[in-house]
């Protein structure tokens, strides 16, 4: 290319810059979240169901923050998959707005009294976009693929680890045998990472799932240029949306064109100028501007699973082996200040170990972990940290109350740890930050060579996320890689979480998870600080947005455009 090739570019400038037309009516922005920790959060049910039929047609131009690099949802642990997976794949079950499993591709199911056999009766009118029939053999092909160690999934195998064998009982009856009772099984099957892939593709060309996945979803992949654009086209014969959202027939949009723009300001600019209609990742820094723009709508939803932890202690290493120190630090964090400074009012403070939108979240359990510097000081005094060094840091027997927290240099959540550092210093605790590469982080974890780790979270759609993050069995030990980086191994908590995992009726599970959350509030293996929020923004011409019940991320099946084709 020579400099002459730039001339057409300069000429093309004249053709750009046209903004979208102003729309009337439609959605309003959600109000700024109330900045008060410990309140249960419920969303109106209209968030989860289609209120009125929409107008078919048009292309929704979406801008997302990142590209997974692969569209094979079953292999990855990427958070992007939460909304992206729903476009091309469908699942066996879908949660209702209270987090209970409801029918989707499975019409109904029974669980044996011992909790080890799940028998699914499937819909008989579902096909994959390559023409393959969705049936019991297809379910078996998918679960077996996820279960096979050779598939090398990042996470999904662990989620269905108790799944031992599958059996095709009848063409549309599938039986899953578990090695142990595992109540979260149905919740897990509703997650976007468990979308059903065409058995023919699994059999004949599993490598192509990454770029041309074939599912039963409302959209199919038309074009994918990694890190540039993903174009999805409507599947016209789709008519099996989950009952819960009360949508019949195919999606309204003809196409979804997704561009990947990592820079927040650029995403906001693309939206504000009308270059794009929708962003799945609205930058908090521009949220106020989006709210103020009459042409734009901002929606904010708390993700399910575990909220953002400011710090996770290694409870085996001093000074955090002393529960009083951990309790003191939890009470020293000014979460509301943190939410204001870090999220400009868009983030929601929390003391909970489950996110407020997760089933069996108990707001009362962790109420005592709120900001109380005086109580924090009393706890540190009681723990013997009564001396003071020249710089105001507490001492005990001549040793300073200090610790190093590992953070990853790539983490966008670094701001949280910096906020904690300032809060801790105020009560005489010296927290040093050590940013290291992500891979080294894993090495420290494996070697149990750290005092504490910085910001972390675990997305899931089930309160069983507590088991994954805090159960003693999930500690890195003897080659096992788990997510319990706190190394908490409390027999009482283990028993409660294991009992909840075995299952029971709603009342039993509510009691077990409430007790587990109270036990966590006593043990404080980590300090939850903020809810993980999904901020989405779109132009007023966009209507019909429904939030997915498993992830609280956008579901595009019901979205439609005012004046399509405009």
């Amino acid at each position, binding site marked *: 290319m020579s400099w002459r090739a730039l001339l057409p*570019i300069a000429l093309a400038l004249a053709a750009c810059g046209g903004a979208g037309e102003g729309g009337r009516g439609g959605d309003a922005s959600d109000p700024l979240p109330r900045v008060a920790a410990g309140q249960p959060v419920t969303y109106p049910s209209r968030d989860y169901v289609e209120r009125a039929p929409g107008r078919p047609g048009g292309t929704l131009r979406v801008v997302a923050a990142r590209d997974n690099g*692969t569209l094979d949802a079953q292999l990855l642990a990427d958070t992007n998959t939460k909304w992206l997976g729903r476009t091309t794949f469908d699942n066996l079950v879908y949660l209702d707005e209270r987090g209970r499993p409801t029918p989707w591709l499975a019409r109904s199911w029974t669980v044996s009294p011992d909790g080890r056999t799940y028998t699914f009766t499937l819909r008989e009118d579902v096909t994959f976009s390559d023409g393959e029939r969705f049936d019991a053999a297809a379910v078996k092909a998918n679960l077996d693929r996820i279960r096979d160690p050779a598939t090398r999934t990042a996470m999904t195998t662990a989620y269905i680890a108790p799944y031992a064998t599958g059996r095709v009982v009848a063409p549309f009856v599938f039986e899953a045998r578990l090695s142990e009772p595992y109540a979260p099984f149905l919740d897990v099957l509703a997650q976007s990472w468990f979308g059903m892939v065409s058995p023919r593709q699994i059999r004949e060309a599993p490598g192509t799932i990454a770029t041309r996945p074939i599912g039963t979803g409302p959209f199919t992949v038309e074009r994918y240029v990694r890190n540039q654009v993903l174009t999805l086209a409507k599947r016209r014969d789709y008519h099996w949306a989950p009952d819960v959202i009360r949508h019949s027939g195919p999606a309204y949009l003809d196409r979804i064109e997704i561009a990947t723009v990592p820079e927040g300001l650029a995403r906001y*600019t693309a939206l504000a100028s009308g270059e794009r209609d929708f962003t799945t990742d609205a930058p908090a820094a521009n949220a106020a501007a989006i709210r103020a723009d009459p042409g734009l709508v901002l929606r904010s939803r708390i993700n399910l699973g575990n909220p953002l932890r400011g710090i996770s202690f290694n409870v085996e290493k001093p000074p955090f082996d002393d529960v009083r120190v951990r309790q003191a630090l939890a009470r020293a964090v000014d979460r509301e200040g943190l939410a204001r400074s870090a999220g400009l009012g868009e983030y929601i403070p929390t003391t909970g170990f489950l996110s407020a939108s997760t089933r069996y979240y108990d707001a009362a359990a962790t109420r005592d972990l709120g900001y109380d510097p005086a109580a924090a000081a009393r706890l540190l005094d009681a723990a013997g940290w009564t001396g003071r060094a020249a710089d105001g840091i507490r001492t005990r027997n001549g040793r300073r109350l200090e610790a190093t927290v590992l953070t990853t240099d790539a983490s966008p959540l670094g701001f949280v740890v910096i906020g904690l550092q300032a809060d801790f210093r105020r009560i005489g605790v010296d927290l040093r930050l050590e940013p290291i590469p992500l891979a080294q982080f*894993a090495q420290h974890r494996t070697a149990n060579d750290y005092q504490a780790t910085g910001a972390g979270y675990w997305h899931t759609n089930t309160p069983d996320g507590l088991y994954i993050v805090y159960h003693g069995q999930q500690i890195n030990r003897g080659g096992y890689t788990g997510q319990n980086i706190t190394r908490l191994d409390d027999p009482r908590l283990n028993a409660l979480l294991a009992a909840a995992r075995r299952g029971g009726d709603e009342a039993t599970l509510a009691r077990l998870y409430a007790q587990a959350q109270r036990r966590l509030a006593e043990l404080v293996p980590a300090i939850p600080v903020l809810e993980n929020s999904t901020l989405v923004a779109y132009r007023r011409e966009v209507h019909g947005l429904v939030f997915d019940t498993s992830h609280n991320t956008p579901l595009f099946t019901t979205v439609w455009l005012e004046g399509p084709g405009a």
Partner: protein
Amino acid sequence: MRFVRIILWRLLAGVGVLWAAASITFVAMNVTGGDTAIAILGGPEALPTAEIVAQVRAEYGLDQPLPVQYARYIGRLATGDLGESYRLRVPVAGAIAEQAGATVRLALAAGALALLIAVVVASLTAGRETPARAAVSGAELVLTAMPTFVLGLLLLFLLSFQLRLLPVAGEGGAALVLPVGTLALPLAATMAQVLRQELDAILEQPFILAARTRGLGEAAVRYGHALRHALVPLVTLFGHMFGFLLGGAIITETLFARQGIGRLMADATAATDIPMVVGITLLVAASYVIVNLVVDLLTAAIDPRGATA
């Protein structure tokens, strides 16, 4: 003969450079890389079962001693096999090939634009003490000192956000303007500085005076005589600036949401995708070798003084 010798010598050195790059990357990744099996499975966000971790260790030979791993690694690379990306699960060579075109287009456009700006600006301002020269020099100083991402954000804010002249993303030509500009401006500034200095000196030379006394016009003197002599250091500089272009590509591609090698490298590094990092490192090292070879040949062609050496 001389050209053949340059080429042979450079190619030999090039093989050494590639071997060194591969070895350094291997050592660096194994010293700082942490648990490779976990990296393969998606890093700290992963929750693999013990079975899967064991599977990965066996499949990738991670249970072997490091020297064995190194020998296998170099052997594989020597046969041209770059392996499979941990993160994308596709052959590295294919993933790079898919993204390389975008980066080459970006770099070529930026290089060409920078050269054009530098030649025009330097020729117009060299050998003259005018206010315009002072202003241009000031602007050059600011542009060379400004980090690429700051310049990129400024241009994005000004041209896309404030003036709404250019799109922030897309595949059309208009979407190329901001990234090309962001890459080209600092490069143009540096090249203009060097070129002007060179021209200043050349315009004082007796042969320029001779040309003027022969009655040649100002334009003919500047573009016909002086510029040709000033090009030698510029070509050498261009070889060095190639590295700037590649480094800048990582930032501009991410900032302006373009596909390309830079973005691929940034993602691969963040995810400890070792085969991809190695593949791109080798590609970059190889391009350095080739660019410097071309620079040497060009220098020899432009400046015939070394012809008998």
